[in-house]
């Protein structure tokens, strides 16, 4: 049976048990990826940073004081890595300009999902993260509230703002009003 709790799995992974490590990856990767996507807005960046976060987490696994907190700890690592990347990107005017350009790709060039990803990327981070978590992680407000440590009403407010802004970005209204 694989009903091993995180505590045991973390301990086993720290001792080199590869199967335990694989179970932990299967168990926690998706949430880490979703948080990265929510913070960065780009699938490719999210893939890279989520992988980096997982590798860092397992490299430093013995520093984890409470193995039961492995999941939240990984998410924390991922968030820090995302912040670093955002800072680095902010330093590079080129990247910013490029992102802005990408976000206004003509519809004829970009596909439906492409437009959506670009719109997601343009959303302010404070609404993007809850929105991505909500839609990609079970559409459960309580889960999002718990993970972000905000009230349910706070999450609703952000989601409400998020879907309205997303609509603006996906229609002509977004192009003229943004930035």
């Amino acid at each position: 049976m694989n009903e091993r709790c995180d505590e045991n799995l973390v301990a086993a992974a720290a001792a080199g048990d590869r199967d335990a490590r694989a179970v932990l990856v299967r168990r926690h990767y998706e949430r880490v990826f979703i948080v990265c996507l929510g913070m960065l807005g780009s699938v490719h960046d999210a893939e890279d940073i989520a992988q980096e976060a997982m590798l860092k987490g397992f490299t430093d696994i013995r520093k984890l004081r409470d193995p039961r907190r492995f999941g939240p700890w990984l998410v924390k690592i991922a968030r820090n890595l995302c912040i670093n990347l955002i800072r680095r990107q902010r330093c590079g005017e080129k990247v910013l300009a490029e992102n802005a350009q990408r976000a206004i790709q003509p519809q004829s060039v970009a596909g439906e999902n492409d437009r959506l990803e670009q719109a997601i990327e343009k959303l302010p981070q404070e609404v993007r993260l809850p929105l991505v978590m909500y839609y990609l992680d079970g559409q459960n407000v309580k889960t999002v509230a718990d993970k972000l440590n905000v009230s349910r009403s706070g999450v609703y407010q952000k989601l409400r703002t998020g879907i309205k802004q997303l609509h603006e970005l996906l229609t002509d209204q977004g192009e003229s009003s943004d930035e």
Partner: protein
Amino acid sequence: MNNPCDNMHDKIADFVLGALSRDEIDALREHTSKCPECEKYLQALQDEKQLFTKFGQTLEADMSARQDNVIKALDSSVSAEQVRTISTWRTIMNNRITKSAAAAVIIIAVLIGINQFGGSVDMATIAFADITEAMEKVPWMHISSRGFEGKIKGVVELWIGYETKISAAKEADGKASFVNYNEHKRYEYDPQTNSITIHYSYENDLPLNMSSPTLLVESMYKMLKEQGAKIITKRGEYMGEEVQIQEISLSSIGQNSAGQDNVSHFVRLYIEPESKLLYVAKVICTDANGNTVVNGEMTFDYPPTGPADIYDLDVPRDALIIDKLPNEDYMAIREKYRACRENVPDKYITIITEARTHLWTCDSIRIFYTDNKRYRHENHLLRWDMNAPQPVKLTVDSLGKSFEALLQWAKQNDDVSHSVGIFQNDPPVTGSLEQKGWPYIGTEGKVIQDDYARENNLICIEHLQQGHIYEGNVTLPGRFLYYLDPQKNYICRKEVTEWRPDAQWQEDKDWLKAVEPEKIREGSISEGEITEFIQAPNGYWYPKIIVNKSTRSREKDYKNVPLEVNVIKTVYLQIDPEFPDDIFDTDKLPQ
């Protein structure tokens, strides 16, 4: 463009989020039936919700492939046992817990304990002292502890067989473990279920530095000295016998549970003067207020023999045996596979282009340099070409199809997003050759036959995983297939990952009964197949083109949905290259 009534924006958004009551929904419906703009706005938000959900499903379909990549990257990042041993030791030494709890003595217990119960560090026991050459010759060491109850739970008795390469432990709650490192077998007894589970053990030898007690002691003393411990050696008595006493005291290191400094640790080791063997260790820890927080004692003896099996640890003979050992056929193949996997060249450069079929993901080029000690990994993302009359997605195909052309492009082109990492001694993050051709396969697999294996003369390895629920999230049962080609140095020609809600191999048939139906996802399949190979001058086969496919979204009928290509990877390999100057120089990394 929609222009709904000003006061309806939030209402409609809340409706889409499912946050309205029945009455509010009725009121909204009544309004939208009369107001075309609001109706249009509602429809648009609903469509966008659908779009987002579809986007999520597409991402999710690729999730297992992403997880596989992480597992492979992790696998390559923990290669040499020696590296792991040293880093574990260093980590434990630097860990605040080990500084603050029962100090040095406990560290050793932790080191031993790590391999006893799969790495749990919440256990106590044992100490060493000035262990001499005599220690190297002892066949068995047996340690029992008392006085740590309520402070540090765990092992109360421990045996280490140096010649037999066996370790055995009993815990206070009746759990027991027995590890035979020669046979790669670990037995774990759980009194609650009265069962013994037999696992494969990866380690070839006693864990960490335990195979040589002297090494361990030297490391411990070094650490103690570095931390400013005072060590006094004197003569004394214990239970009427003359002994050598070593008193180790450390203060002002670490923190107690309240976060205060000035915790004192006092360890007194009693050593038999002739044999120089340690036979008692007393550990006293006091907090900042002088209160004793740990007062424990460990006794050591050196019997000529130790436990022969787990039943010698008071485990009942009628305990149920749960055999988790891989079968022998599988292990023999896995050994050959592992040997091939480890036989990748020491010095090489790979360039892997990743052409992604989804419009919303960029193509990329990964370049990996290694001389087996140093590693450089570059990831070049190809964004959109904004200088073209009509913006177009840059593709790897447009950059040339030779190793030299791609390398040259990567050197010159700084208009793309790229990241570079250099690793000294630590194994690589991603991009290594072995990951591409020889993904990690676990120990709990078996050899099966299917049409694909038969038609292509391949060996098929099947690994099954139980579904589970964790914090309300459901992970479906997984089936992982690896098709190995014995004619081509056991390269893994194809990997298939399937997540199946109705898996026959799920042991607990009622595992989803208490789960809300919307939390249960549909199944999915993803696969990576090497469609072309390169035979290098060393005679070895390596992957040339790898095609990754998956079911696009999780659908009820996922087994009958044709797989769609997500990524086509092309591998360019140069063995024993001349590395460009400064390629591994961290000071020369791009800013």
